[in-house]
């Protein structure tokens, strides 16, 4: 330690001995040997864990009466009604609520999962394709230009995208694209959801497409960075073995960063599940109906919360807010579950891959 370090005596010769005590000597020493850095590091590492736990606990506490009153019906019910806010409050099982309050989140849950699924199905191939073109095809300068635009696009405010979706993109889809699909889709299970009335520009498909547009830059930019790190040697090995460019990409380059790409997709999925403004502006905000085809107006969890916030504050019993907290809890659980599942997936897949450490 600092006490036994060689010191330069005033006489000029080095020797061992106690250092003269100076103010802050201990702090200086612990800065030097890394104690301070270690504590800062530990604190920093704990923050995300604590924050997540804190939010979960607070949400659960706030939502607890709603959880008790709504029960499992919360997941199967399709009605979202605050009840008569001007009537006398009723107490059921110790929970105070307005008469006629009924909360079923099924439409919102289906809407959230549906729009996110549409977004992923479209965004993942497009984003990976974009990243591949940028890394493997475009000349360097053009690649960095396109990459820059991609990052710019990732930072586009969602309200801007939402407005464009509601005013321009939605009507275009509803009038010019969706009818073509709806007319030509065969009436068989699953595909029949693509048939029927195409609405007028607000609904599940439009919201899903808007979400796709919003997460493509995120996934593509992350994938591009990953692909740029794939070493040349295994790719040359594939080429020397007589593999075509596509085979090299499919069998070597993409698997090399497969775990990372799953991570990028989860990042995008998290954004899609939680995206509020753009979806609220394009979903049609129909709270209590499960959409019967993919064009119909609907709602998502996030959109429901933002759109019923105002009236929820009018509920003198506070029950509407508690139900919104329960809804948020459901959204958090969905997001956390997809994250964990993706991580498990990566761990299984990367068993045979990735010399660069597991669980990239």
């Amino acid at each position, binding site marked *: 330690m600092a006490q036994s370090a060689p010191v330069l005596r005033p006489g000029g010769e080095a020797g061992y001995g106690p250092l003269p005590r100076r103010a802050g000597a201990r702090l200086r020493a612990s800065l030097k040997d890394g104690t301070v850095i270690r504590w800062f590091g530990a604190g920093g590492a704990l923050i995300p864990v604590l924050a997540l736990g804190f939010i979960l606990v607070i949400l659960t506490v706030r939502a607890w009466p709603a959880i008790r009153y709504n029960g499992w019906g919360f997941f199967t019910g399709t009605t979202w009604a605050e009840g008569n806010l001007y009537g006398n409050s009723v107490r059921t099982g110790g929970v105070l609520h307005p008469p006629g309050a009924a909360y079923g989140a099924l439409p919102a849950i289906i809407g959230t999962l549906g729009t996110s699924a549409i977004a992923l199905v479209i965004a993942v191939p497009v984003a990976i394709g974009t990243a591949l073109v940028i890394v493997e095809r475009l000349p360097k300068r053009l690649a960095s230009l396109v990459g820059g635009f991609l990052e710019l696009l990732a930072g586009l405010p969602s309200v801007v995208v939402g407005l464009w979706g509601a005013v321009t993109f939605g009507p275009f889809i509803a009038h010019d694209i969706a009818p073509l699909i709806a007319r030509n889709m065969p009436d068989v299970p699953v595909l029949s959801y693509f048939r029927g009335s195409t609405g007028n520009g607000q609904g599940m498909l439009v919201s899903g497409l808007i979400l796709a547009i919003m997460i493509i830059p995120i996934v593509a930019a992350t994938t591009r960075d990953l692909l740029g790190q794939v070493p040349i040697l295994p790719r*040359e*090995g*594939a*080429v*020397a073995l*007589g593999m075509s460019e596509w085979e090299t990409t499919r069998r070597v380059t993409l698997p090399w960063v497969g775990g990372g790409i799953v991570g990028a997709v989860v990042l995008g999925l998290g954004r899609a599940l939680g995206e509020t403004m753009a979806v609220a502006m394009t979903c049609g905000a129909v709270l209590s109906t499960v959409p019967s085809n993919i064009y119909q107006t609907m709602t998502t969890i996030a959109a429901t919360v933002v759109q019923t916030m105002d009236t929820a504050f009018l509920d003198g019993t506070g029950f509407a807010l508690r139900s919104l907290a329960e809804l948020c809890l459901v959204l958090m659980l969905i997001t956390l579950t997809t994250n964990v599942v993706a991580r498990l997936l990566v761990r299984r897949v990367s*068993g*045979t891959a990735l010399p660069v450490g597991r669980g990239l």
Partner: protein
Amino acid sequence: MSIEAGREKHPAAVPGTDVAAAAQGARPSASDPGEASLRATDLTLGFGQRAILTGVNVEIRRGSVTALIGPTGSGKTTLLRTFNRMNDKVAGYRHSGDVLLDGQSIWHPGVELMALRRKVGMLFQRPNPFPMSIMDNVVAGVKAHRMAGRGELKSIARDRLSEVGLWDAVSERLKDSPFRLSGGQQQLLCLARALAVGPEVLLLDEPTSSLDPIATESIEALIRTLVPALTVVIVTHNLAQARRVADRTIFLNNGRLVEHGETGQMFEDPAEEETARYVSGRFG
């Protein structure tokens, strides 16, 4: 078999046939040893303005091991990588003159590049397994060239791994990651992978430069077993290695081919003063 013949089932893919038989089958009339497998005529290579090799005329003898030696920057690796056209896509690469494989130009428009690379395999300075299981690594090329059905892959993998002496070490963990193998084992795996597509020529680019002496020894011993079924060209910085494994040696310096001859004669009694200076360690 001509280069254009493309991706039809290759004899090497049939279980039970070894590389020797496959290679023989691939060129039934070419058993006489002195003949050239690869021939460079007046070959000049460069990247952009920079010339790497000038006016190289050389024959690589079929069924023998030929070493390419020379100081750093002498163009050994560029020449080697030209033999299976690995340089074609490198920015600024240019060539004049020609390289003939079995008498046909490798740049002939009728030559299918993927088929050429199947016939001229390559092993690199450092092991480069693919991010897939050990088993999938061995048969990656076989699958890409559609040389065998799904059911045959396992026996192909076993044969090739046995051939390089890796079978006993990995037979219990074929589904495992190749990145947990030692460096030497990884390089052997890459060799098995290259052999699995039944090449005629094998290009080795300093294949042992990242390996320890024991692994180097086993790779060198293996190289000797590949001839005369295959033609082997090896780039090496290690003169002792060239002496141990090569039948013939080519000395390159400053982008020119200085001397080409029997390995023994090249080291004991070189014709050129430059060669003598290099092999005796006076420069390079």
